[in-house]
């Protein structure tokens, strides 16, 4: 669903972030509208993961403004930002390895209303039935694909308004990638969930995205509907054919 006129849910203006004195984000402007799938692509080291984490205040934006649902979140503590309804499946998945799948999901629901826990659990088990089979297993014993499913499921347990996914396809078999992208598309289509997707696997991401951003060296250099970007020769050359 292209929703150019719907409300802006997340907006960044002139956001800069640093590691020590090295700038990783050099003034990022970006809007994500309610109900859309937004994709951010860029090569390794461009600053995509930094952007995802900076939205959560870790590292904190040193300049610029980040707002969510009209509210300035630039200097809020990370956990308070999460409580507004942003959830992230971060780079590397970061499953709690010495907790079971079920406990990982419980932690995902830590700030949710306990009355909806069972319903949330049913919902993520319906999306990823594999997790239900594995619910008693420890997170560290899962395969890469299962860990990714768990990371997404964990992020969904709080019933977020914005789901942020950092490279969900990294290192996974094509079949698993397909399954995960279908699940994302489904969530967006059926529940109107807003999704912000970071990918190096640009083809899938651009195909799925209502709006896409290209990041180079800490700056957004290009944006537009995903399919338009997919058609651009320079994008194809940089992120599809030549790339990974």
């Amino acid at each position: 669903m292209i929703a150019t006129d719907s409300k802006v849910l997340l907006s960044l203006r002139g956001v800069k972030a640093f590691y020590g004195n090295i700038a990783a984000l050099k003034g990022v402007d970006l809007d994500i509208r309610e109900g859309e799938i937004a994709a951010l692509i860029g090569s390794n080291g461009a600053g995509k993961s930094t952007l995802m984490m900076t939205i959560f205040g870790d590292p904190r934006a040193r300049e610029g403004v980040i707002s969510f649902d009209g509210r300035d979140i630039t200097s809020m503590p990370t956990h308070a930002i999460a409580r507004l309804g942003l959830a992230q499946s971060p780079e590397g998945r970061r499953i709690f390895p010495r907790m079971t799948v079920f406990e990982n999901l419980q932690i995902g629901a830590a700030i949710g209303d306990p009355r909806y826990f069972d319903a949330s659990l049913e919902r993520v088990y319906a999306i990823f039935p594999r997790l239900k089979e594995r619910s008693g297993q420890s997170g560290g014993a899962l395969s890469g694909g299962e860990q990714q499913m768990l990371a997404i499921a964990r992020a969904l347990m709080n019933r977020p308004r914005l789901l942020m996914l950092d490279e969900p396809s990294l290192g996974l078999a094509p079949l698993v990638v397909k399954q995960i992208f279908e699940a994302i598309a489904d969530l967006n289509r059926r529940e109107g969930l807003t999704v912000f997707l970071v990918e190096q696997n640009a083809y899938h991401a651009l195909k799925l995205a209502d709006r896409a951003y290209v990041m180079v060296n800490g700056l957004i250099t290009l944006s537009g509907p995903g399919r338009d970007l997919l058609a651009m020769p320079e994008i194809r050359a940089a992120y599809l054919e030549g790339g990974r």
Partner: protein
Amino acid sequence: MEIFLQQLINGVTLGSIYGLIAIGYTMVFGIIGMVNFAHGDIFMLSTFIALILFLALTQILGVSSVALSFVLAMVAAMALTSLWSYMLERLAYRRLRKSFRLAPLISAIGASIFLSNLVYVLQGPRNRPAPSLFDAVIKVTHGGGYDVTLSAKQILIVLVTALLLAAFWVVVQKTPLGRAQRACAQDMRMAALLGIDVDRTISFTFVIGGALAAVAGVLYILYYGVVNSGDGFIPGVKAFTAAVLGGIGSLPGAVVGGLLIGLIETFWAAYISSDYKDVAAFSILAATLVFMPSGLFGRPDVEKV
């Protein structure tokens, strides 16, 4: 054989106390990767708190039931000691968490000196005697001119320890706060992304560690009958050794390590030399750090120090 049995009983008693203290070391290390050097002094402080409360209850307020006074003093000591432990983290450690690695350690050593001196100033340098409670002694067996005894105190100490460890285990494994605690110990930044208030969870860790140290303090003074302001150090080091031996960061490790240290210490004193019983703990600490740094239950992958 009789001597052996007696030492076993004594060792388990002592080991219970070390285990309770060791949990505070191991939990704090597990979550923020620092050795809380002041934890032994928190333990020492709790013995004074409990002693003063107990005397106030029995002698000033005139509570006649010893058991009731004992329970009340213990619960109140747990609450007050937790508060101290909480304040310690808030005032001395929190701001230094993002500083260089040694900063909180140095602050902890400072806090340790502060606490033992505070008690020294307020309570004086002398040993403080505690009223003798639960003095009944059971003769277990007799042999070779030697009575093997089990005192009411020892039974109480082991029972209270077992009960509190069970309660503690349920809190850590089954409650949302316990779950958040474990999540933060595994990946603090991820826990924050999920909306968990990491600062609050760390405070909770210090509160729990303080409460268990207070239980240890109450049992310690019950067992030994005296305490002074310097008594945080040696039991603190032994409990820390227990945590390292068990594998620092591991909760079952802390308990098992505590029991082992208690047993080693009593057997050492009985069979080798009671003058040098503290040497045993220090030697084990050094040997564990050199030969088995991840301890009995530790994971070799922990790299937090």
